[in-house]
């Protein structure tokens, strides 16, 4: 496959500017296009071919705020065709009896380090934090992903169909994150969610200042952190302008010399162009509000604050600014910036009509995002709210999809979306609920009742017993 075929699949890149401008010039062959306009690591993900099927008589949480009883989900060609009650299909297709079962969109984790901090946790594969400079926008998490992390299959058994792998939080700007489909592949490109935007990991607070401060360099304080972000964005603005002027000059009499590429600034300028989404690790209320001002100063948008332990203090601002708060249900106290956690955090964010997300940041937690959402919902309800499963399911499906810029493709059970679907044994907010069947793009990727339909990583093979199974 040449990149000519691939090129149109990537509207979200520096191309959006370049293509527009080039449209005015005579057709050029791809070889003549500037190097920075290419997607160097294109997704090669291909949905596993699947047959049509229908899940019938299930309780369906659509992810759009509805709970349907005795409902059906019809899937054709890997896409959701119909969701609703009284769906009759005469043809002879596979039928799954959903009686007593619950059906949800595939679970999405907006904050994972699967593959970059894989299991087993040994120094030789801890590849999530490039802590050699406080701004490393040039690194891409996908280049650290070990596709054979056995945590991925465990997450699948927890219903996770899509996850965003982020660099760690040791740096002010840690690099690009990547959104992956939870499928077996030999390459990370084979897992890359088609047409998902890249993300930029930024980090507030204790982690960057502790690490660099301990090395006797900036940042050693929170004010040093802020100076560091702003200095980076000033450089990115200048870089963007330089390239924009170059693009404008192409074909004209005053065609400028092609600027020198800088991978760090290339990523940052793509954020300024709106093509890369900012995911900002930020615990404390005042730091979130400072980051919002920085985003305004430089004209970019923050997609989500992660680990937003104090989101409940600024939930109204997050609602107004349309920024998601990605939170744990109840983790607290491991750092000072995590000291003000309340169990009602996610519920209070939801109640303020802001976008609430439960994330994992953990290879254990990602297997139980339904449980985490359940605890967060229960805490809100115990204090007087009336949240329902149809609301809280969004925290682990539609809302992370929105924050990751893939809400038009997955995250809800709606017609024409990817058939990323979980059939649960019980109400997914029960401790007794297990994901029984997990579909990705309509293909049955995990079946709890059929060992032949439970994927295992390369790592698992023969690791505890040459002839046996790890699990």
């Amino acid at each position, binding site marked *: 496959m040449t990149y000519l075929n691939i090129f149109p699949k990537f509207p979200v890149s520096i191309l959006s500017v370049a293509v527009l401008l080039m449209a005015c010039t005579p057709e050029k062959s791809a070889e003549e296009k500037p190097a920075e306009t290419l997607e160097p690591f294109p997704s090669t993900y291909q949905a596993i071919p699947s047959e049509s099927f229908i899940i019938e008589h299930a309780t369906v949480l659509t992810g759009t705020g509805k709970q349907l009883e005795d409902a059906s989900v019809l899937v054709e060609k890997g896409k959701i065709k119909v969701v609703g009650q009284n769906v009759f299909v005469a043809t002879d297709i596979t039928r799954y009896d959903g009686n007593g079962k619950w059906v949800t969109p595939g679970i999405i984790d907006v904050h994972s380090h699967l593959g970059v901090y894989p299991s087993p946790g040994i120094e030789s594969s801890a590849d999530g934090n490039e802590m050699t400079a406080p701004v490393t926008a040039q690194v891409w998490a996908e280049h650290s992903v070990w596709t054979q992390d056995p945590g991925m299959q465990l997450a699948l058994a927890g219903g996770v169909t899509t996850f965003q792998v982020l660099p760690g939080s040791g740096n002010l700007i840690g690099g690009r994150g990547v959104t992956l489909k939870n499928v077996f592949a030999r390459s990370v490109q084979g897992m890359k969610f088609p047409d998902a935007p890249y993300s930029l990991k930024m980090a507030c607070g204790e982690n960057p200042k502790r690490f660099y401060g301990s090395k006797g360099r900036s940042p050693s304080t929170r004010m040093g952190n802020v100076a560091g972000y702003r200095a980076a964005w000033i450089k990115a603005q200048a870089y963007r302008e330089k390239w924009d002027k170059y693009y404008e000059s192409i074909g004209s009499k005053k065609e400028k010399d092609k600027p020198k590429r800088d991978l760090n600034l290339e990523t940052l300028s793509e954020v300024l162009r709106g093509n890369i989404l900012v995911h900002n690790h930020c615990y404390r209320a005042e730091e979130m509000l400072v980051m919002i001002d920085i985003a305004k100063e430089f004209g970019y948008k923050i997609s989500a604050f992660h680990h937003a332990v104090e989101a409940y203090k600024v939930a109204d601002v997050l609602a107004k600014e349309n920024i998601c708060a990605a939170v744990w249900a109840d983790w607290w106290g491991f750092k000072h910036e995590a000291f003000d956690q309340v169990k009602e955090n996610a519920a209070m964010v939801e109640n303020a009509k802001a976008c609430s997300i439960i994330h994992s940041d953990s290879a*254990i937690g990602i297997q139980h995002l339904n449980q985490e959402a359940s605890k967060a919902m229960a805490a809100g309800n115990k204090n007087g709210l009336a949240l329902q499963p149809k609301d809280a399911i969004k925290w682990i499906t539609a809302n992370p999809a929105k924050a990751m810029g893939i809400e038009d493709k997955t995250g809800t059970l709606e017609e024409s979306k990817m058939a990323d679907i979980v059939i649960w044994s019980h109400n997914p907010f029960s401790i007794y609920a297990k994901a029984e069947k997990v579909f990705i793009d309509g293909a049955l990727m995990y079946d709890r009742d059929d060992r032949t339909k439970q994927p295992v990583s390369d790592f698992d093979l023969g690791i505890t017993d040459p002839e046996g199974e790890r699990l």
Partner: protein
Amino acid sequence: MKAGKKLAAKILRTGLFSSAIILTTFASNAEDYLIKNATVHSATEKGVLAKTDIYVSDGFIMEVGNNLSVKLKHTIIDATGKHITPGLINAATQMGLVEIGAASSTVDYSTKNENQGASFTIAPAINFRSTLIPQNRINGLTRAIVRPAGGTSIFQGQGAAIALLSNENGLLSSLNAQYASYGIAGANISGGSRASAYAVLDKALEEANYLRHNRSRYLPGFDWNFSQSVEDLDALKAVIEKKIPLVISVHRRDDILKMIALAKKHNVRLVLAGASEAWTVADEIARANIPVIMDPILNLPGSFESLANRLDAAAILNAAGVKLVFTGVNWRSTHNGYLVRQSAGNAVSYGMPAEEAIKAMTINTAEVFGVENYGQIAVGMEADIVVWDGDPLELSTSADVVLIKGIKQPMVSRATRLRDRYWDLKDIQKKAFTR
């Protein structure tokens, strides 16, 4: 005094109490409660008791039965439609030894003092005014085993048992177990090999036993040619005499078998902690009558010594007859120590009987660590009681009432006060004056 007489009468009748307990009871300021009409998870051989009443007086459970009517003055707690368990206990925490994990000035669970290995005793460092205690308490955790961790010796030292009271009455016992590491952690601290770790443990236990019989030869000032300090070997005496268990953190199957053999050789009471691959040798562990401390939610092959971790490990071990003691959840067993309930729930979801899982966070823990008169809803037990608004293992369930030693606890923590301050976001400037 009237209540005291009444209790004395009960003691005579039931014959359950030791004199030491009577002393602590008379010092309590507990009210009397009649809890009505609950589904009681008793953590006894009686299992679940339907529509049951519990009478609590002077901090103790005095009666458990149907339609109790007690004439004495008491407060009624209507628990119709609700569930009751003993207050839960987490078997491996640093409760009171850490306020903020990454703030070293608030952390007391390990020492770099090389003279303190087995003799490092953490009880004096426990801060009963810690914010962690109310936050865990209002979520149904009423007791905790507090253990040392880290340090420079293969022995981490001696742990304590506490009740989650915000005062010094919370200290229950200050020397209830000795802790050691084997496997990767033990190897790292012993020079880099399990073989070194094994030798260090073996020698220390041998020396401790020798010293126990020859202590008078080693007066202060004499040459001390032992591998451990005098204080450390003296501290191991309680292990050698089987007064307290030796809790060894160990994961790999063959490492577990080595530790079982080591414990047999030195005739000590071994408790396995972590024990990721214990299920693969469940029968051997059951046969040796060795309890296992575990967090049943852990299923990652997180290291090369825990490759066989799995979610049904607790169910397998329980079925084999191993006494299980739960901690969790995950690495947050202190700040979120109450979430041992979630870990237990996962064990049940993956095949362990619910009532056995409840025992693994109540009576089993009490038995392993010698926490007396706690861990069951039964006459003679101290009244650590939680009234839950639903299935005690379910995620949507919360604690409605928490009694510790018969004292009803306020359902308030620093977190609930922050929540209440920010519940609405109007008039932010006035929040300064909300308390």
